[in-house]
């Protein structure tokens, strides 16, 4: 039943994320423009937010409303996803439209005592082109309260008082901008970048008080398209605004635009590295008992190994950790355990060490810890008890215990004694669920809400049968219930026809078996109704050393498409699908994954994913899939791509929790480049127990 509370927390997360504090910020924050990026009113600036900072903004004026998510992906790289609504896009009386777009900005020069900050950026570089522009911009803080910005723009930003492109001195081709033919959108418009007429823009931010800032700009965007189709009649190139900053994390602005319109903007800023609860609210752990230091143990340790095993099992269970196997070998104790409470394996390891030191008789000199997940032992960490005692409370102790630890692969299970627990092999629960899809091309938000019953039977830790049944109570996706017009097999585009309101639907029902068939080799076999739309068999192998940032994987699936009623039946469509995968955990938290193979619609291609993972579990990433499906057959967007955000629940609540809430912003309704959504893929299971991963959060070892 524990999952129920997790589910409720997941539902609440969107409201809680905003609590993130910005304590510790030393400098004046960037001003955010109507595009949701650091800038003036509509013009960009070269200002760079602190690394990792993110902003959510809601902006608009009469003709356009925009929601923007901007991330400082790396110290010099800023990325933005924008979802915009355009009134009467082709002129008065014509239909409205929604548009998704991406921005990218690179900070070429850092601001110094004399040098301004200089950035190069692309707006709407892979969308339908409604907002496409490029720029080079410089920003200089000339006094603590005044910041000047000037730049050169192309595309939309080159439409007011434009002049011949100075890049023409490099190649005459820069002087002409090709027609704006974006077709189905979604592809980078390389042929347009920095081409055609250029124009100057600039402005000033003047901080009147710590809470109020005046902004003025000369805009180089003449709104040509909107003027030509009769939607807008701009009277002035100057835009002005007043921004109120009620707190470090929010900005509220009102603008005068074009001499004719009023614009409003709200921006909320947060940084994943700033936790709402600064150091967390984790319950205090047991202290380390230092032998011979006058410590008065709570328990005079029982001496038989059976009694010790029972004692340790109870103590670890009280801390949310399941002791699965144990070995007493001379002065060494080896424990194999599964952590179901702490996101950080390092923290769980620290708690296990504390319990061992607290309860075991003094003659045990070393501890070997082997974390497991789904029954497979992931790694081994050996610690000397004297080091545990020495570093548990000292300044530098976190580093000290890391340096003294011996890491390696898990040892053989042959000499381990399996611990029998009284925990039931059968678990079940009932919980509400919500399934939210944001920023669809036709609807800003679609979602289902309903009731879900889940059950799980554990034959062994490595062999588990689990399933879920849902009853959808309400949805706004009914309009998608008719079949799609896709020319590809409808492996995703018919998703709106699955699980009609008012009837029980089997979300999944599958048996999964995990194993270690060889050194550094892990396996998974999953059979059953694997996901909402497909059932069958899925087999996977993963090679990964415990100390390596690289991994290789192979997955093969034979699946058939399920009936729309999400019962036990299947349709006629079946497919052999699978991928070879390469994983690379880079420095500074970046993860790269390349998957190549055959997708659900039978198309061949590859997916490249890049994610940045913070030590506290936050994860931001993007992916793109290119297959042999022609862009025209794929439909709007041309190929599958998206961005994704994962927020760990312990970040928001401050309490120990292994659950995270993930959101992917993409189109779920396209058939090209679609992968099977099988649960429990090996890489994410295995890497969490490898020390090249958990060293990132080693700061929590003594937490």
């Amino acid at each position, binding site marked *: 039943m524990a999952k129920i509370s997790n589910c409720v927390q997941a539902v609440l997360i969107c409201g809680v994320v905003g609590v993130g504090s910005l*304590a*510790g910020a030393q400098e004046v924050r960037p001003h955010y423009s109507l595009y949701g990026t650091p800038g003036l009113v509509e013009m960009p600036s070269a200002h760079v937010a602190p690394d990792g900072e993110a902003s959510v903004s809601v902006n608009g004026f009469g003709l356009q409303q925009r929601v923007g998510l901007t991330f400082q992906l790396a110290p010099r790289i800023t990325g933005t996803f924008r979802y915009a609504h355009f009134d009467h896009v082709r002129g008065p009386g014509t239909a409205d439209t929604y548009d998704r777009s991406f921005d990218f900005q690179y900070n070429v020069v850092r601001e110094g005592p004399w040098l301004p900050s200089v950035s190069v950026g692309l707006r709407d570089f892979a969308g339908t082109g409604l907002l496409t522009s490029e720029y080079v911009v410089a920003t200089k803080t000339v006094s603590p309260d005044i910041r000047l910005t000037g730049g050169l723009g192309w595309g939309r930003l080159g439409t007011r008082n434009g002049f011949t492109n100075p890049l023409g001195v490099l190649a005459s081709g820069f002087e002409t901008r090709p027609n704006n033919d974006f077709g189905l959108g979604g592809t980078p418009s390389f042929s347009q970048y920095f081409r055609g007429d250029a124009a100057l823009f600039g402005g000033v931010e003047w901080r009147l008080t710590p809470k109020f800032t005046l902004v003025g700009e000369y805009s180089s965007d003449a709104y040509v398209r909107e003027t030509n189709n009769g939607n807008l009649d701009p009277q002035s190139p100057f835009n002005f605004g007043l921004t109120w900053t009620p707190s470090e994390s929010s900005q509220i602005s009102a603008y005068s635009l074009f001499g004719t319109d009023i614009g409003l903007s709200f921006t909320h800023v947060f940084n*994943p*590295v*700033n*936790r709402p*609860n*600064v*150091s*967390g*609210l*984790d*319950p*205090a*752990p*047991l*202290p380390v*008992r*230092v032998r011979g*230091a*006058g*410590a*008065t143990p*709570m*328990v005079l340790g029982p001496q038989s190994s059976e009694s010790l095993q029972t004692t340790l099992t*109870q*103590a670890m269970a*009280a*801390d949310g950790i399941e002791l699965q196997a144990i070995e007493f070998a001379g002065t060494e104790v080896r424990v194999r355990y599964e952590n179901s409470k702490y996101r*950080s394996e390092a923290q769980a390891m620290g*708690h296990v060490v504390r319990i061992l030191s607290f309860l075991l008789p003094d003659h045990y000199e070393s501890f070997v810890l082997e974390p497991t997940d789904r029954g497979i032992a992931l790694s081994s960490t050996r610690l000397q008890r004297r080091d545990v005692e020495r570093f548990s*409370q*000292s*300044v*530098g*102790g*976190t*580093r000290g215990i890391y340096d003294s630890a011996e890491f390696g692969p898990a040892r053989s299970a042959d000499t381990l004694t399996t611990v029998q627990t009284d925990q039931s092999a059968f678990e079940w629960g009932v919980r509400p669920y919500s399934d939210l899809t944001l920023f669809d091309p036709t609807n800003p938000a679609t979602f289902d809400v309903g009731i879900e019953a889940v059950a799980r039977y554990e034959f062994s830790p490595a062999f588990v049968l689990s399933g879920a049944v849902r009853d959808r109570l309400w949805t706004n996706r009914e309009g998608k219930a008719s079949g799609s017009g896709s020319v590809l097999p409808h492996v995703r585009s018919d998703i709106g026809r699955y699980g009609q309101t008012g009837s029980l639907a089997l979300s999944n029902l599958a048996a999964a078996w995990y194993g270690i068939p060889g050194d550094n080799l892990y396996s998974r076999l999953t059979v059953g109704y694997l996901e909402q739309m497909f059932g069958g068999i899925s087999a996977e192998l993963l090679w990964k050393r415990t100390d390596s940032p690289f991994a290789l994987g192979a997955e093969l699936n034979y699946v058939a498409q399920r009936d729309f009623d999400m019962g036990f039946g299947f349709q006629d469509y079946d497919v052999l699908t699978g991928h070879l995968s390469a994983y690379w955990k880079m420095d500074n938290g970046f993860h790269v994954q390349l998957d190549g193979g055959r997708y659900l619609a039978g198309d061949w291609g590859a997916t490249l994913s890049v994610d940045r993972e*913070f*030590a*506290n579990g936050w994860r931001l990433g993007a992916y793109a899939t290119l297959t042999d499906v022609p862009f025209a057959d794929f439909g709007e967007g041309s190929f599958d791509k998206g961005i994704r955000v994962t927020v760990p629940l312990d*970040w928001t609540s*401050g309490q120990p929790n292994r659950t995270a809430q993930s959101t992917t912003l993409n189109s779920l309704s396209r058939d090209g480049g679609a992968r099977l959504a099988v649960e429990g893929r090996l890489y994410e299971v295995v890497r969490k127990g490898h020390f090249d991963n958990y060293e*990132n*959060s*080693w*700061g*929590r070892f*003594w*937490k």
Partner: protein
Amino acid sequence: MKKTIALALLGLTVSGCGPLVKDSIIPRLTSVFQVRQVNAAVTPVSAATFDDSPVPLMLILSRETGVAVLVQPFMELENRTIWAAPANQTFTMEQGIIVETRGVDDGVHASDLGNMLVEMRRNGATRRSMEYLTGNDQIVRIDFDCVYSNLGSEVLSGFDRTISTYVVQEDCKNAQIQFSNYYWIDDRDVVRQSVQRLGLNGGAVETLLP
């Protein structure tokens, strides 16, 4: 002093200090091993609370939240004592100086005293190191240069007790941060009352050992 006690009583009343939270490992282990442990949930606090307790009790008040907790010794480690609160919190103290907290928001992960225990008795100075856990799970260490001043004598009264103390002010600073702590020390060199900064963001507590 009166403000401290009043806030402590208010805090105890508001926070309830009810039964031990089930997620706390310490009380759960207590039930597992049936170790003698006084239930520190006391409402309201009176002189009898301290008189009747078989173990020393200390009041710790969060200046930020105004919530107070009663803590009791949980374990002795050489010259340190771990004081435990029923609500999942521990405060490790060395001669009354807090050197580590757990279960406390904006707490201190680890710290040392340098030569503080000597210098605070002779208006001296020392360097102290403190470690904090950041929101991104990293340990940051900050060194402070601390100077000690004897502010004179003061008699503490409350809970049917009067305690003669002398007051030491501790001024610590580095390039970015500065703060002051205060200690009321009796004639047996026991810190009976204090105001101590804990966290990276300035979280501070008041302690009272009647």
